[in-house]
């Protein structure tokens, strides 16, 4: 939904920026560009030739799975000097899965970010530790002992 954010990322990753040609979208002529968001995500954006507004975004979404996710934007609104869409329809494999509207947006100083916004609550334990409680890992010494026992039994079998 935050098209200015992805446009900034595109401007910071010019080496991977490519034109994907022109076409039409919902009766409008569009130009398509693609760029890399991170090592796992490449995004294609359709830009309206007349207004310059982003109309469609296609990208793989690691959070949602392996499928390519298509975002179709409609409407515009201006918040803190940035132009955002009003709504988005998200589809996967041609099926509409989300119908989204922006109910609030704040940028930069208005956003008032603090490190606590990204902190994990201490009560959350890493998943591996929880798994280890049920299946405690064998120590290296235990593994060596088991290997020695296995070789000894192999020798006994061969001797017979």
């Amino acid at each position, binding site marked *: *939904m*935050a*098209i*200015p*954010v992805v*446009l*900034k990322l595109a*401007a910071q990753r*010019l080496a991977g*920026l*490519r*034109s994907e040609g022109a076409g039409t979208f919902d009766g409008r002529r569009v*130009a398509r*560009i*693609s760029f890399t968001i*991170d*090592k*796992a995500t490449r995004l294609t*954006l359709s*830009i*309206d030739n007349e207004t*310059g*507004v*982003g109309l469609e975004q296609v990208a793989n979404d*690691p*959070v949602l*799975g*392996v499928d390519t996710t298509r975002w179709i934007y409609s409407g515009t609104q*201006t918040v803190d*000097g*940035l132009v955002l869409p009003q709504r988005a329809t998200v589809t996967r494999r041609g*099926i*509409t*899965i989300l*119908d*989204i*509207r*922006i*109910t*609030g*947006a*704040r*940028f*930069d100083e208005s*956003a008032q*970010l603090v490190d606590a*916004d*990204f902190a*994990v*609550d201490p009560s*959350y*334990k*890493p*998943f*591996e530790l929880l*798994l*280890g409680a049920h*299946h405690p*890992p064998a120590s290296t010494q235990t*593994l060596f002992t088991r290997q020695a026992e296995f070789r000894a039994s192999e020798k006994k079998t061969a001797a017979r």
Partner: protein
Amino acid sequence: MIRLATRGGTTLALGLAAFAAGTGAWAQSALETSFTEARAVLARALAAHGGVDRIQKLNAAKLDLAGQISTRIQGRTPEGLAHAVPEGDFETHITIDLAKGRSRTSGEQRGNDGFVFPFSGIYTDGAIHFLNPYPPQDTRTQNADADEGREQTAGIGTAWPYPSC
């Protein structure tokens, strides 16, 4: 005869070299054209979404989203599986820190029967931390590799990591 053959070979070699050079120049030109066109489109989009200067200064964002969800995968009824019927509504709050390359998505999905599914995930340091409330656990999946990141994330909640021994 030998002189003629040598002369012919030289001409052929020069021709091949010129063809190879021409092909290389054409390929590079197409790539450059793609890059130039893309930059022009990007500049137009930047101008339309607030201007280059405003977007370059953009460092933080908080978005509140709401809407309806219809995964068609977890439908409660056969109709839910057969058609894109909204299964419930959701609220999502997204916090983006562009300066430090991290983001957080949290919120809750509410089914039509009153089922509430809270969710939260933090993207930082090349991995997504999924915070699952029951029991409180932090599942960290690498997102730095195009195949591995997507594969691991796709099976979240169902796949078990490899045993540690």
